[in-house]
């Protein structure tokens, strides 16, 4: 029997998304389990910790199973074994976990990640001690960047305030001439205490905060949250609700791909693309507003179902808009493909080869553009995706052109799905009362537009939130961006960065 099977055999199902199971491990078997699952192709979805009692968690997807390893620690000072050598993406998650829970891994990189200079190192945001009184910020954070030395090497610091309508973060480029030798990211600027805030809310209200973890992924996060919450309630939302959630999730994917495909054209100096796609996006948002009541679906997915059943004529108008969008997007794709300037900027820029993507754990559409063909809508489908037969989009070139191509393919597929969902929408209620959650931990996991989006929800007494950890796929992809830029020129960074379009808020929490 393959070693990873033995972990699955001794695990028990957890409430929430399909295929989620939990297993208690010891400090000795934590790494053994991670290694066995990795050997069977497992990828790390998320790693997080609890402060009190001290527990480390790792969620690893292996085929159609999401295995959650739970390691209880004897006290908060005992470090848990680092998984950074098994899954490099674990490193920053471990550093962030140390910042907010005080629970440390054995990894050698002990630099703080989301904690800058704004609160003292002794303060544990998820601990029991009260927050220190903070006066106005007067000192900037001193962070030890890894230095590159040599003749002609110099550094370009960028951010946190960027030269555009973008979220804040800091990029430290080490360059020779225009060529980038190294990029080091410094994130955490928009850390606003989301995980602490969750513990002040009732579990039945947490979906609103989940939707605001990363506004561009509101449906993905609120759906994942509701999966976990409804799992703990033992409640299955009515079929019409799950189909409408899928409609909302695909609509979110459409809106984001439309926005980014236009921005990619613009970053390649082709303003026509931005004008065309931003108009299509605006029309899409207006059709969504008419059908589902919101342009951005921050309050659409609610415990038990969805907030609004679309009127038949508005739904028909949305389908008509989807058809028109598909038609025009295909026409603009042809123009992009034939445009010499666009091809010149897209092809070969920011390449992440499939082997590197696999090693670093690249996920979502960016992973699929580098040969990593996982898509939870196919591999681990929650209702109604098993009935929808989503066609996955995969490329192997791993450059900006491949990421744009995957986005074009996924845009077309999501527009098709909108029509299919609208046509086959089951009759009945669009929500039903979820009831009260039991104490325990539930896990939600959906394939958001950016990639696997997870929420771990631990409910305490009287329906309170004991702990909630939302996980954005940007955690996986930010470190890969550092590799994608190596050897490229500085002026290509905005284009390469946009081709991934990672979330700062979803990462910084």
């Amino acid at each position, binding site marked *: 029997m393959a070693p990873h099977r033995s972990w699955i055999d001794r695990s028990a199902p957890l409430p929430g998304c399909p295929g989620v199971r939990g297993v208690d491990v010891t400090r000795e078997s934590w790494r053994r389990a991670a290694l066995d699952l990795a050997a069977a192709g497992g990828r790390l979805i998320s790693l997080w910790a609890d402060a009190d009692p001290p527990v480390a968690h790792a969620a690893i997807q292996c085929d159609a199973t999401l295995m959650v390893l739970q390691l209880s620690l004897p006290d908060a000072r005992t470090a848990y074994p680092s998984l950074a050598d098994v899954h490099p993406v674990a490193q920053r998650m471990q550093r962030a976990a140390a910042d907010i829970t005080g629970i440390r891994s054995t990894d050698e990189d002990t630099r703080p990640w989301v904690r800058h200079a*704004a609160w003292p190192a002794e303060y544990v945001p998820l601990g029991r001690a009260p927050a220190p009184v903070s006066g106005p910020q007067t000192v900037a954070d001193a962070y030890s960047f890894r230095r590159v030395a040599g003749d002609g090497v110099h550094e370009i610091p960028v951010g946190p305030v960027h030269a555009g309508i973008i979220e804040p973060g800091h990029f430290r480029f080490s360059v020779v001439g225009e060529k980038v030798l190294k990029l080091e990211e410094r994130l955490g600027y928009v850390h*606003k205490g989301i995980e602490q805030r969750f513990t002040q809310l009732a579990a039945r209200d947490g979906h609103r905060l989940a939707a605001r973890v990363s506004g561009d992924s509101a449906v993905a996060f609120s759906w994942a949250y509701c999966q976990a919450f409804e799992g703990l309630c033992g409640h299955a939302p009515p079929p019409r609700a799950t189909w409408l959630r899928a409609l909302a999730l695909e609509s979110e994917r459409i809106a984001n791909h439309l926005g980014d495909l236009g921005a990619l054209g613009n970053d390649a100096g082709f303003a026509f693309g*931005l004008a065309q796609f931003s108009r299509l996006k605006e029309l899409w948002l207006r059709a969504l507003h008419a059908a589902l009541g919101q342009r951005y679906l921050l309050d659409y997915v609610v415990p038990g179902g969805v907030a609004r059943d679309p009127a038949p004529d508005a739904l028909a108008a949305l389908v008509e808009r989807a058809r028109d969008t598909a038609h025009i997007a295909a026409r603009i794709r042809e123009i992009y493909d034939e445009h010499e300037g666009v091809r010149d900027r897209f092809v070969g820029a920011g390449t992440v080869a499939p082997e590197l993507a696999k090693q670093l754990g690249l996920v979502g559409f960016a992973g699929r553009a580098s040969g990593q063909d996982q898509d939870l809508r196919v591999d681990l489908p929650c209702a109604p995706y098993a009935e929808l037969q989503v066609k996955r989009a995969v490329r192997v070139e791993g450059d900006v052109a491949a990421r744009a191509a995957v986005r074009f393919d996924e845009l077309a597929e999501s527009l098709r799905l909108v029509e299919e969902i609208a046509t086959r929408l089951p009759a009945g209620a669009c929500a039903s009362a979820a009831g009260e959650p039991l104490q325990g931990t539930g896990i939600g996991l959906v394939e958001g537009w950016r990639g696997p989006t997870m929420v771990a929800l631990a409910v305490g007494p009287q329906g309170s939130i004991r702990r909630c950890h939302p996980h954005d796929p940007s955690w996986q992809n930010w470190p890969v961006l550092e590799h994608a830029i190596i050897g490229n020129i500085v002026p290509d960074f905005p284009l390469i960065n946009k081709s991934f379009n990672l979330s700062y808020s979803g990462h910084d929490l």
Partner: protein
Amino acid sequence: MWKTLHQIARVGIVTEPAPDSDEALRVRATLQKEILAIMGRALTVRQIDAGSCNGCELEIHALNNPVYNIEGLGIRFVASPRHADLLLVTGPVSRNMELALKRTYDATPDPKLVVAVGDCGCTGGIFGENYASAGRVANVIPVDVAVPGCPPTPQRILAAILTAISASSKQGDQAT
């Protein structure tokens, strides 16, 4: 090339009329006459995300689309605070961004205007104030106009910008 031109011609001009300014959004009204005299009818805007969930940024982006066509009104987003007349700030202001926001404000030449965007920029929103969040934008820098919404629509954000640069009916009010 003809495909590109054909598509441009097929779409045509889609820009809609701009919304009116809205006095209800004004937080404070000082120095309006002096500011207007200097700025005239052209305005440069620097957007600062001081901690938002990125929802407000999506709607601010929309101002540049052909439907709202903010540049057609003489309003332009610029890359540096040194070039800006108005700061468009989303929140809540994270404590990790507090200093960067203050420095950006200080780097913006006087006279300057500040518009706080979104429920979080106006009040701290669902995140409120905690060890990592300083709450509303006005807790950190002076705010002239605040537009609520989660996120506010592009029309409302545009109305807020137009309110900031229009003469106030509350001229001479004290800052709040």
